[in-house]
């Protein structure tokens, strides 16, 4: 399985600021995914990021709020913009297993608290 490094592991931010989360994979992958997990909730997909194209956002998520970059096949970033306390969540990146594209492997996650 791929090794995924995600940082920062946690951060405390002020309302109105932005935070960029980085996700680095040790192998080239076609698709990377960004999820949000609000307190006590399950994972909700924010967007799917393919290298060389615009990210595809799920209903309820927009590019202005969650801009995503995918400059190459091993790296992606998610920015949480103009943060409010409602953005306090765990943010997770994942990649598809290259052997079995049914399986996704996850980074360690970023725990974000917005004051």
């Amino acid at each position, binding site marked *: 399985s791929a090794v995924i490094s995600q940082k920062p592991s946690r951060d405390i931010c002020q309302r109105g600021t932005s935070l960029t989360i980085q996700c680095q994979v040790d192998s080239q992958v076609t698709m990377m995914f960004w999820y949000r997990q609000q307190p006590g909730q399950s994972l909700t997909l924010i967007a799917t990021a393919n290298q060389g194209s615009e990210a595809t956002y799920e209903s309820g998520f927009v590019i202005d709020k969650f801009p995503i970059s995918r400059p190459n096949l091993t790296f992606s970033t998610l920015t949480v913009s103009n943060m409010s306390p409602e953005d306090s969540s765990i943010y*997770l990146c994942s990649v598809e297993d290259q052997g079995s594209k*049914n399986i996704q492997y*996850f980074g360690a996650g970023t725990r974000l608290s917005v004051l």
Partner: protein
Amino acid sequence: EDKVVQSPLSLVVHEGDTVTLNCSYEVTNFRSLLWYKQEKKAPTFLFMLTSSGIEKKSGRLSSILDKKELFSILNITATQTGDSAVYLCAMGYNNNDMRFGAGTRLTVKP
């Protein structure tokens, strides 16, 4: 509407007990059903099931899928305190879509 429903939402047992976690789903274009264990932040992959009736087993954990009745179970035998976690069921469908259930929070007491 595509959905994944897990039960129970939480469960408290004592070490040595056996537990069964349930996951039912509704979807078109089903591909696979996956189980993950989430202890802190990152879900770790346990099993992927694509065929009915074939048990997947890893140590004290096992899982099986019933594609006719649209459910899966995850069994943990001889539970240990280290099994305490949230267990997530996820459904893969269409080309690369995945939907997660709400999870079952398992607490194993010494």
